[in-house]
């Protein structure tokens, strides 16, 4: 039950993009095509989970015992940055073809605040490892949901002529706003 609450909470009620404001840059920047957004969500899911596991270990088994939790930010960012790159290297090493396919399918995965944010939130919410992992995956799904829906709408808006003043980012932000408005309906589910 607790896990279900975590999942529903992260996907719908406190959607990472629409309620927590994390990962807005890719949300606005990489949502041109639906297919790309789908792929992006898959990739984010993996990296986010991995990052959460590793940062969880670092926090609970290095920072806390040594009483240097104030180094959370700097250590997380170092870990996440190297992790993202490590995944890239491994993929490239393991199967160049696979790596290339991902390469033209996805824009680059960069360290975005969604990953760091989720890692920090896992600590803040005092989750245990499994809860943290579930939380990470659910957040990635929430990210995916938001970005895929958004990409769909943007594809549609691309075809109709939005007024000049609102074209691009302003209209995208208003759409995001209305989506956030709609998602408020999930308030109180957990």
């Amino acid at each position: 039950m607790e896990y279900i609450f975590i999942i529903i909470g992260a996907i719908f009620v406190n959607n990472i993009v629409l309620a927590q404001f994390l990962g807005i840059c890719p949300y606005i920047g990489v949502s041109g095509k639906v297919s790309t957004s789908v792929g992006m969500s898959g990739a984010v899911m993996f990296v986010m989970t991995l990052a959460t596991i590793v940062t969880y270990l670092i926090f609970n088994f290095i920072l806390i015992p040594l009483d240097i939790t104030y180094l959370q930010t700097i250590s997380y960012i170092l870990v996440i940055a190297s992790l993202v790159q490590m995944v890239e290297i491994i993929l490239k090493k393991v199967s160049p073809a696979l790596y290339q396919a991902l390469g033209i399918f996805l824009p680059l995965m960069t360290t975005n605040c969604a990953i760091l944010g989720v890692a920090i939130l896992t600590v803040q919410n005092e989750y245990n490892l499994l809860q943290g992992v579930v939380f990470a995956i659910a957040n990635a799904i929430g990210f995916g949901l938001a970005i895929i829906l958004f990409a769909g709408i943007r594809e549609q808006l691309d075809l109709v002529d939005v007024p000049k003043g609102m074209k691009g980012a302003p209209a995208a932000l208003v759409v995001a706003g209305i989506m956030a408005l709609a998602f408020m309906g999930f308030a109180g589910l957990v």
Partner: protein
Amino acid sequence: MNKVKIIIRGIIKENPVFVLLLGLCPVLGVTTSAYNGFGMGLATAFVLLMSNLVVSLIKNFIPNKVRIPSFIVIIASFVTIVQLVMEAFLPDLFDALGLFIPLIVVNCLVLGRSEAFASKNDTFSAVTDGLAMGMGFTMALTALGALREILGSYSIFGYSFVEGDGMLVFVLAPGAFIGLGYLTAIFLKIIGER
């Protein structure tokens, strides 16, 4: 480049929020009031300024390949400094900004500026640039914070001017997006990009 030009560019032509759309998470996340926006803006500006300064000072000692990680470390250090100092001396603001302070690290604006500008220019320009971008960022955050506060709580910097609760939406998540959306449109219109 002319220093005045750098500053004007940072505030208007390449306003990091309205024009470049960088680092939007904190922009949306903390601007429930003008004060919070202002505080976050200053915090980011400080990190930006300091990291630009340090990066431009040590740029010649860093091998190309570890440029970015070094910058990240430098930025992360300043962020942590801000975090510690703010927690010590401005605990209320610290509570309000919460998660978004550590997230300054990944704010593309900060990294981008160190990377693209500070690592290539002399210290003085780098500092000016950091200042300009920081000012642009702070301005935008304060503006959005003010908008949301005015509509959402009928007050500005905490001074309430009309009785009543305000339009709650603007304090909540949707209001952030909507407010930023229209502010961006207006800003672009004013500076003649549209």
